[in-house]
């Protein structure tokens, strides 16, 4: 469904061997280098495999899963990971949460919910080019909050393509505006991006934590992103205005207007969102473990949907769920877990505090900048998976909640920097290439992408600095000691 595997194209055998040699060379030399510098064998293996995964996604996007499978094999062989920890670190609840959401999205599509959104955007009265792009970009960001960024950009791109097709415009600038805003929007809730739910689980943040602390920051950053991208592409938007006005004057519509029965779709989505939003209240009332309802809510909703749509149930599970990506996430989480399990992240955290101290005013920008730059070049999930244990370790000495938000914003906003920075970028550009046979160059993207990410990160930095004194201390947050202990396994 996500079609995110078009990136990278075909590799010749020579390129394949060359890149594989480079990958093995770098990861092995880091492994041996680490061992020489005093890491244990297990620690070296974990670091080396993790680095191989990072390089694997850079060099072989199309078969990153194969690299992850082999990586798990290496970790088991070198005794860096055992099966019990593999299963535990694979974060099955996060995976199942994503499975549930993907099934719900499939049902929403069938119910015409996304058609309704597109139609609603199109029936805005007295529409102009600027208004259309601004509304579309904001809608895309909010839709990303409600479902996920990849789904959102797929539907929004389709709309932009159709309109540009009718107006005979080059869709690339408008698509870029929408994708940049979608990436920003994905930081607003835990559904927006796989890193959101992963951080939520690791940090025991609730849905209302996200709404209270992350959402307002996202809204401000989104405002800045809409403004700066629309200023950047002002010439293209002028042209859009002219073409649109010309077409409207000739009384030709942009897309056929259809009254879509959106009730069912909207109900399904709202009920799911309410269920998720109430998770913390329900957990407290029923005395359940933190986030246990959050993680099963989408599954329960998907179950109800599959009972009502029995004939489509199998299709939802087989075709709407992006198993390829989810399997990759599972293995990735497990490999990142190995870093914590073997104590590598503890070493990193110590190094981190000895370099940057424990002052939040320094740690917030450092973490955000590191994550943003890292996420620009490798999958942000990889980066967050590696960083999460470091932040967990930091939590022993500093107030940790602002750092989790810094990690989230760095990972989501950093995706804007390059055209391979987030899955949404890759998917949207893949669609652009397929439908319009158009390429966006790396530097064409980098200029506006880096600018928008920089501004958004500055806003987030400022907001977090202002807000952090009001955020709860580690001890005030209602996390049981057992869960804490589980999150900090002792090194071997």
């Amino acid at each position: 469904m996500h079609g995110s595997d078009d990136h990278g194209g075909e590799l010749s055998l020579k390129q394949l061997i060359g890149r594989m040699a480079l990958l093995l060379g770098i990861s092995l030399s880091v492994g041996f280098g680490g061992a020489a510098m005093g890491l244990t064998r297990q620690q070296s293996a974990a670091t080396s495999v993790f680095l191989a995964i990072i390089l694997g996604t850079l060099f072989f996007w199309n078969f990153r899963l194969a690299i992850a499978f082999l990586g798990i094999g290496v970790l088991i062989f070198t005794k860096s990971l055992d099966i019990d920890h593999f299963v535990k670190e694979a974060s099955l609840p996060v995976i199942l949460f994503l499975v549930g959401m993907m099934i719900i999205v499939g049902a929403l599509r069938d119910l015409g919910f996304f058609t309704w959104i597109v139609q609603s955007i199109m029936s805005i009265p007295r529409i102009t080019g600027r208004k259309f792009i601004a509304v579309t970009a904001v809608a895309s960001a909010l839709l990303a909050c409600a479902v996920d960024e990849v789904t959102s950009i797929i539907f929004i791109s389709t709309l932009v393509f159709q309109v540009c097709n009718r107006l005979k415009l080059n869709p690339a600038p408008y698509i870029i505006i929408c994708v940049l805003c979608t990436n920003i929007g994905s930081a607003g809730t835990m559904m927006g991006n796989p890193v959101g739910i992963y951080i939520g689980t690791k940090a025991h943040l609730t849905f209302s934590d996200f709404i209270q602390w992350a959402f307002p920051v996202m809204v401000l950053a989104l405002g800045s992103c809409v403004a700066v991208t629309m200023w950047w592409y002002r010439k293209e938007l002028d042209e859009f205005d002219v073409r649109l006005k010309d077409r409207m004057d000739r009384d030709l519509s942009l897309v056929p207007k259809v009254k879509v029965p959106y009730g069912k779709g909207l109900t399904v989505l709202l009920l799911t969102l309410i269920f998720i939003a109430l998770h913390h209240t329900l957990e407290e009332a029923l005395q359940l473990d933190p986030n246990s309802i959050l993680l099963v809510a989408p599954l329960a909703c998907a179950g109800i949907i599959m009972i009502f749509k029995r004939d489509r149930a199998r299709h939802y599970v087989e075709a709407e769920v992006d198993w390829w990506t989810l399997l990759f996430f599972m293995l990735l989480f497990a490999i990142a877990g190995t870093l914590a399990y073997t104590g590598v992240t503890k070493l990193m955290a110590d190094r981190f505090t000895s370099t940057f101290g424990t002052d939040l005013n320094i740690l917030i920008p450092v973490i955000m900048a590191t994550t943003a730059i890292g996420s620009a070049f490798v999958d942000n999930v990889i980066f967050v998976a590696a960083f999460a244990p470091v932040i967990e370790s930091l939590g022993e000495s500093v107030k940790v909640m602002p750092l989790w938000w810094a990690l989230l914003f760095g990972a989501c906003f950093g995706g804007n920097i390059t055209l391979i920075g987030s899955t949404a970028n890759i998917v949207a550009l893949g669609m652009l290439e397929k439908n319009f046979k158009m390429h966006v160059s790396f530097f064409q993207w980098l200029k506006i992408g880096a600018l928008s990410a920089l501004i958004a990160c500055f806003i987030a930095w400022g907001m977090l600095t202002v807000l952090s004194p009001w955020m709860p201390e580690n001890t005030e947050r209602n996390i049981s000691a057992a869960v804490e202990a589980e999150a900090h396994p002792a090194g071997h």
Partner: protein
Amino acid sequence: MDIQLCDCLSRENILFEVGATSRDDALIRLVDQLAKTKDGFDEAAAGQALKEREAVLPTVIAPGVALPHARLDALEKPLVAIGTTRQGIVFDEDKDPVNLILLVLTPKIDPSAYLRILSMLSSILKDVDVPTFVSGATIDDIYELFKAEEKFVDYLTAGDVMNSEPITLLEGDTLNKAISTLCSRRVLDIPVVDEEGDLRGVIGMEDLLRQSLPQHLLWMEDLTPILRFEPFAEMMKKDQETKLADFMSEDYVSVPPDTPAVQLAKVFLMSQARQIQVLDGRKLVGVVDLGGFSTKLFWA
């Protein structure tokens, strides 16, 4: 199997002034002649197959030329018999009488044999005005004409099996014209070319539907809001001003003319295309339709 025309055609199988009055009579005489010189084929079955084939669709391939043919089970190699008649025999009610009958029998297990022979015969007759030639020729002239052919067709190419005069539309033609052409000519795909004859795109029946039903309407499973084809109204309202260049599809499948014909079979299956464009550089030289290709290969 290598085929050369001189191996299939012997001099005694040329019936100068075949002397028949009807199509079926002519076919029987030619088959009789072949049966005399060649053992081991079922004369009755051949006659029957030829007559049935002609009855379905007469094989008049050029003015004055008919090419009756049949595919037979128990045949080792192709056989050709030729009959001439100055007065002419009616093969097809709608066409001129036939002066030259080229009867071809091929083994059923070699589907391309007939096409290869057809290709050789066509190249021989390319510059010949058949009615004039037959009226002045002796049996030696006829034998020499076909015997002289040295061209050896090893395998068929896209150029051999393509339709070299396909229906085309221009980039600047309107949607209205595309609809009337697609529907009245009963074709599913039409290549769109520019003034120089270069291929620019293809317009297919689905493109008409796609123009009316944008992608986001396809996301709905419940189609009650559009049961009366409401979205189609807009397309029809401006069919006189929409140019093909605005909505033709640009992902067509194309091959150069020297592509082996068997490759086309693979392309049809792999690309799920119904029509393959044959391009010489950018220039459209012909099209191969799935229907026409399979018919020629298995039946025609």
